[in-house]
């Protein structure tokens, strides 16, 4: 019988914090500016420049540490990690090695196998690197330092995961917690959340860990899953053929679904860490810690329990809505305005999820405001628009966050409640469709549907279907 292997996985997750400015200078962290427009002497490593720590970075890092059950290192320091690379303007990265801000935490994950705890070894604060763009024409690379100095936390897990499913559950859990904290938007595709996978295999039952590799450049859950499966197989094949796994860093090529070793004589991987003399230690007093603890938000589990008590909506809906902090906020704020949880939930669970899926968007990307959703619900309630028109208006609102009331007015989409005008139209429809009228009178109940449709068409959709039905039946 073939040997059974166990996969052992630990993760290093980098999360870009949602601060307005970089970690050590007053440059904007906005994503996607023209090259080098968000730079200054500090984040481009100009001689003589010095870093000054953004306080909000510490607040966010502590908040994430508390949410992941870590011990907060109340006296922590920054260290320099020295290595040469063009995206790293000083050729050292300011990070934390000796006294990281959070240690010894855990999160609970749930998979098809049940619940389990994944340990968090540490969380440290550091600066992001710039971006390298490859110029095919000149056969060179180009450096943009806009991202250089954007604050990151690196969350280092214990090697507690055993499958891709657990890894994804862990990442989903972190993403949820961090989004609930508002500490990051955690978008894998934009790089505001990045995961490096440390993986080794060992014979089932073995006590010692095997030699691990580290995989980088994983930009989606799909890539992570495929990379884990591929690396597991690669390592098992090596062991089965009597070879050794080499401890190395490998880069995942998502297009080729293949990883390759990033080996170079010039990469000594000896980072010569030492305390950064330009930065003073950070001391997080008990008061400061309590302040952050007190301002922690309601997390998902608490929110779900409260929804069950407060709102009469299905448990399934609660699960979906609270899965995203943004969606949950939208729900609560809209309900606060219009007081109709059921209807709000229906809009979110129905049209909103449909459009998100259709447009391949995350709930975090939703742009319409709770006020506008509440107004739309109001328009339907007052029968100012019918449900078909409401859905059309919603689509526009989803795209551009228009005010549904003024939109309906401007476009003249309001339901016509003038019975006189309706009667006139119905009479015309009856006159124009003798066959359907005859069918209906001969007992074909369904024929009335066609006549309703014709009436609505003639009224450009602005009639109340109930009223159309009543008037039709009267006149027939």
């Amino acid at each position, binding site marked *: 019988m073939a040997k059974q292997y166990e996969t052992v996985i630990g993760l290093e997750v980098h999360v870009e914090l949602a601060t307005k400015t970089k970690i050590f200078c007053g440059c904007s962290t906005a994503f996607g500016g023209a090259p080098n427009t968000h730079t200054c002497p500090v984040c481009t490593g*100009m001689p*003589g420049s010095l870093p*000054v720590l953004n306080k909000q970075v510490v607040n966010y890092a502590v908040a994430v540490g508390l949410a992941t059950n870590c011990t907060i290192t109340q006296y922590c320091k920054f260290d320099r990690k*020295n290595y040469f690379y063009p995206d790293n303007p000083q*050729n050292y990265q300011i990070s934390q090695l000796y006294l990281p801000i959070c240690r010894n935490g855990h999160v609970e994950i749930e998979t098809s196998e049940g619940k389990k705890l994944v340990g968090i070894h540490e969380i440290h604060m550091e600066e992001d690197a710039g971006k390298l763009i490859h110029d095919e024409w000149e056969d060179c690379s180009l450096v943009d330092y806009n991202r250089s100095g954007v604050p990151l936390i690196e969350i280092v897990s214990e090697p507690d995961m055993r499958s891709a499913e657990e890894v994804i559950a862990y990442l989903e859990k972190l993403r949820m917690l961090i989004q609930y904290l508002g500490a990051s938007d955690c978008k894998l595709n934009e790089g505001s959340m990045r995961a490096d996978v440390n993986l080794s295999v060992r014979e089932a039952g073995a006590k010692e860990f095997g030699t691990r590799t580290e995989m980088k450049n994983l930009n989606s859950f799909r890539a992570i899953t495929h990379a884990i499966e591929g690396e597991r197989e690669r390592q098992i094949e090596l062991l089965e053929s009597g070879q050794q796994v080499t401890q190395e860093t490998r880069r995942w090529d998502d297009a080729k679904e293949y990883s390759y070793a990033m080996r*170079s004589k010039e990469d000594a991987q000896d980072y010569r860490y030492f305390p950064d003399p330009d930065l003073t230690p950070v001391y997080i007093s008990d008061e400061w810690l309590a302040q952050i603890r007190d301002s922690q938000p309601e997390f998902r589990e608490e929110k779900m329990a409260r929804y069950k008590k407060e709102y009469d909506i299905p448990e399934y809906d609660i699960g979906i809505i609270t899965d995203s902090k943004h969606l949950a906020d939208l729900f609560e704020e809209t309900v606060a305005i219009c007081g109709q949880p059921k209807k709000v939930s229906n809009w979110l669970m129905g049209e909103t999820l449909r459009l998100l899926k259709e447009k391949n968007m995350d709930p975090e990307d939703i742009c319409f405001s709770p006020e506008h959703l509440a107004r739309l619900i109001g328009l339907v309630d007052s029968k100012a628009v019918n449900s078909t028109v409401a859905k059309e208006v919603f689509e526009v609102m989803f795209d551009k966050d228009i005010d549904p009331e003024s939109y309906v007015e401007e476009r003249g989409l309001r339901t016509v409640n003038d019975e006189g005008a309706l009667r006139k139209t119905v009479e015309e429809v009856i006159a124009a469709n003798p066959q359907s009228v005859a069918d209906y009178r001969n007992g074909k109940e369904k024929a009335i549907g066609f006549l309703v449709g014709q009436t609505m068409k003639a009224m450009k959709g602005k009639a109340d279907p109930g009223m159309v039905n009543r008037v039709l039946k009267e006149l027939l």
Partner: protein
Amino acid sequence: MDILEYSAVALSAAIREGKLTATEAMEAVLARIDEKEKDINAYVTIDREQALRAAASAQERIEKGELTGALAGVPVAIKDNMCTEGMLTTCSSKILENFVPTFSAEAVINLEKAGAVIIGKTNMDEFAMGSTTETSAYGVTRNPWNTDHVPGGSSGGSAAAVAAGECFFALGSDTGGSIRQPASFCGVVGLKPTYGTVSRYGLVAYGSSLDQIGPLTKNVADCAAVLEVIASHDMKDSTSINRNDTDFTAALVNDVKGMKIGIPRDYFGEGIDAEVKNAVLAAAETLAAQGAVVEEFDLSLVEYAIPTYYTIAAAEASSNLERFDGIKYGYRAEAFEGLHDMYKKTRSEGFGAEVKRRIMLGSFVLSSGYYDAYYLKALKVKAMIKKAFDDAFARYDLILGPVAPTTAPKLGESLSDPLKMYLGDIYTISVNLAGLPAISLPCGKDSRGLPVGLQLIADSFQEKKLIQAAYTYEQNEKKI
């Protein structure tokens, strides 16, 4: 009176009183530079037109009453490791041969705000690594007292410029004695402030935990006035300290009665030149004659300061100098194959021998497996050295000693044996490790006519004691 005879403070007063103009002062300095520079080579960069324009503008503002400070209109020389917006800043290195900063160092901005007028940038040991100003990529600077001798270093250009009248005062930087030792060799006053007193923003870092900018001046009164202007709490420098006692000129008082001065026996042992020793001890007597209580004591740990310093400074320098890679500014090698070759060629061609020596040492002591034995050990010894000073300052107001074991050596004598050169820093280095303020002031000359320097060291934030004692000595020096 010849314009060049004025001290900085007296010159500014004369300009503000209308006796002469800032432009005349600048013209006089430029004329002196024309006369002396070929022998001294104190400057790397002189921008005459800009200097004259700035002098004219300062004059105008003085006449309008906008500039009233003690340094208004005074021509100043800036060590070339301080960034000056729009003016070449080379650190006397080939690797920054074409670097024009887009901002000025905070200390330079403070001087400009006070109306001082920049003449140019002074020569130095490359990246402030050296004690002779011979490691500059732009030629050696010579000692104005005897051009066969070095001016000291690393702020040798600044010290020589002050001594030769090629400026009225200068800024230097001091990581292990780089202001005090050249001041001593050139017979001028130099002060290294308490760490954090002058912003390091815009100072190209060598050993970040040790670097401080300070004045090199003709006398103690100028020194106090300059320090008063450049000291500031700068939010751009995390290690900058908020002090409310920076009215240093208030300490220009001719009185040391009752001041307790300790002389470390350890500073007068093996290796010190007899003439230096005698001059320094005579200075102590002068202070004693003025009422200071002078006694000898054992400071301890003196011989450990140099290895501690070279470990810490080299480690920090190896990291600080990583940014010079040929990508963002400065020199880039012309021919290379690929990224890493570009790094190596650029840095190997761009840095001089002494800089490479310290980068190699610093990289080694931080490398895997050696950190604890070298770097961490040095940080612990640093704590012990600080403690030894704390104990001394529990008993004394000031510590008095030599600046260097000898007067200025001849050109070419020092570089052949780096370790021996490092040993010359023995009296200055521990001051940087402990973050203390210290002043160097002239206390006579040796038989060859080369100046001897007296060093006074105070506890942290006690610059006023230094200034008061130095001023008292200066006022009474010739009365013996």
